[in-house]
């Protein structure tokens, strides 16, 4: 585990909920810009994500980190009028219609946000029309579609086809435990992901590395 320079980022990596809350309160009180505080938290999250990918952290740590983040963001969000502006690219993501599993999707969303992407999360059981609409509205070059149920395979294929028909230039990454080269071909997607790390790689392939 690398030790981060920033105390707040490091408290996040240590999953020290009380310390994170205390430092955020202190910095807000001292007039530190909210964006700066958020970026410290994101740096911590990015390190947590890296440790998860390396097998040093497990889902239990990732979920804990997500909860800590969620709780402090309740206090920070009111100060973030209009969003942060700067980001590496926009990604629309959701679990396809017929499936309500969101654990995998939420992990990828957490890591993509941590890596500086603007993520539009459509939630679960998302109809294909809603994907197409969101991709058009946000002009997203990349769409992530999640499915864990193999029964949602047809729905996944239809959703990829709808997005490709509506916005031919958009790239699609499908994610879930049963994804492989065959499923990717079957669905007509551009990338497949069986882990959150694969999802990040797809984003880097589309938006370019740092």
């Amino acid at each position, binding site marked *: 585990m690398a030790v981060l320079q920033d105390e707040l980022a490091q408290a996040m990596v240590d*999953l020290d909920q009380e310390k994170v809350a205390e430092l955020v309160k202190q910095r807000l009180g001292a007039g530190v810009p909210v964006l700066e505080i958020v970026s410290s938290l994101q740096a911590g999250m990015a390190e947590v994500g890296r440790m*998860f990918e390396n*097998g040093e*952290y*497990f*889902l*239990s*740590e990732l*979920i*804990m980190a997500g*909860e800590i983040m969620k709780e402090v963001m309740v206090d920070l969000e009111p100060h973030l009028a209009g969003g942060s502006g700067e980001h590496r690219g926009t990604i629309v993501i959701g679990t396809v219609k*017929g*499936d*309500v599993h969101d*654990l995998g999707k939420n992990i990828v969303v957490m890591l993509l946000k941590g890596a500086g992407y603007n993520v539009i999360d459509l939630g679960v*059981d998302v109809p294909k029309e809603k994907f197409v609409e969101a991709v058009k509205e946000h002009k997203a070059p990349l769409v992530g579609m999640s499915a864990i*149920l*193999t*029964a*949602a*395979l*047809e729905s996944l294929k239809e959703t990829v086809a709808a997005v490709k028909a509506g916005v031919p230039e958009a790239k699609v990454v499908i994610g879930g*435990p*049963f*994804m*492989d080269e*065959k*499923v990717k071909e*079957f669905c007509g997607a551009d990338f497949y992901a069986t882990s959150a790390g694969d999802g990040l790689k797809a984003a880097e392939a589309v938006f370019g590395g740092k």
Partner: protein
Amino acid sequence: MSNDKSKLLEERKKRYLTALDCGKPDRVPIGLTVSEFMAKVAGFTLQEIYYDLDKNLKALAKFVEEYEVDTFFSAPSLWWAASHDAVGAVYLKFAGRELEPNTQFQYVEGEFMLPEDYDAFIENPTEWILTTYLPRIHKEFAEPGSYRASVALIKGAGARAMELQLTQQGTAKIMEEYGVVPAGTGLTKAPFDTLGDALRGLKGIMMDMRKVPDKLKAAMEVLVPHNIFYALATAGGDTEFPAFMPLHRGAYPFLNPRQWDEFYWPTLKKVIEGLWEKGKRTYFFAEGDWTPYLERIAELPDKSIVFHVDMTDIDKAKKILGGRFCLKGNIPNSLLAVGKPEEVRDYVKRLIDEYAADGGFVIDAAAVVQGDAKEENIRAVIETVLLYGKY
């Protein structure tokens, strides 16, 4: 029962139980764990099998009539949706109610037990479930003791009794008519999953390991005798076939190794050992990847489990568990859905050659087979075993 069918039933039972005892039967048994796929075979929508008990059983009959399997898992739907409607279940969604007629049922996870409920749960779980938990997960029980709640309780209990009786009689008839044996009887869970699935939820239990570890452990201890009893009760006392145990939060990478050792394994081991003392084997349905934990699982008494291989490294499973525990699995469900019959044949042939050669192996899919599998691919599995699977 006709003589032919009773002979067939005995043959299949011997074949299956010999494999579970790590022996070599006449050929590798076929034990496909198939659910919604059967509705497709029978030409029913999912709404029909969730809501109509007769059609649910007919779908199973149609499947075992058309497909030469040795064991069956259950009728395609594990739920009778109407009984859940009667009590207004908030945690299940069914085709025809919230979902379209041919959509897989959905389980909606929530934190239905709160951290502050631990003490009452540990003190008397049944009382807590009746007075606190049931009203939270069923709209109709929202006001316990009210006229509405009492009527719903009678309807719900009546529906459940009807469902169990009809299903039991129906499957007994199917066993007789088609000479197939159940892959398992009875159902249970790891105590960590009992709490993590439907009570505290994933997020809740992950936080509890850090914030209230002692309460979590005490609650799991309370569940050990309950989960042993539940397996035997739902099996009607049968100890010939294994109890089905779907395993969830213990899969890699949910818990870190220290948490797995400290929270997941001790009470799970007690449930399995407790059942084994009563002569009941556990069908360890290891969904996901269990590779890092194989050495710990190998601590169990010989033959006390059937280990289901989903995404676990099958070479390691064979090396660490083989010979002492029967293995079952692991044809990828994506192959059954989008592969060609030749590819399925090659995969099954390789399973037989590399993992079943010395016995103690049952051919199955990696995960429960839903409506996406192609009929020709399921046929290819069976044909391949019949052709190459003889010992």
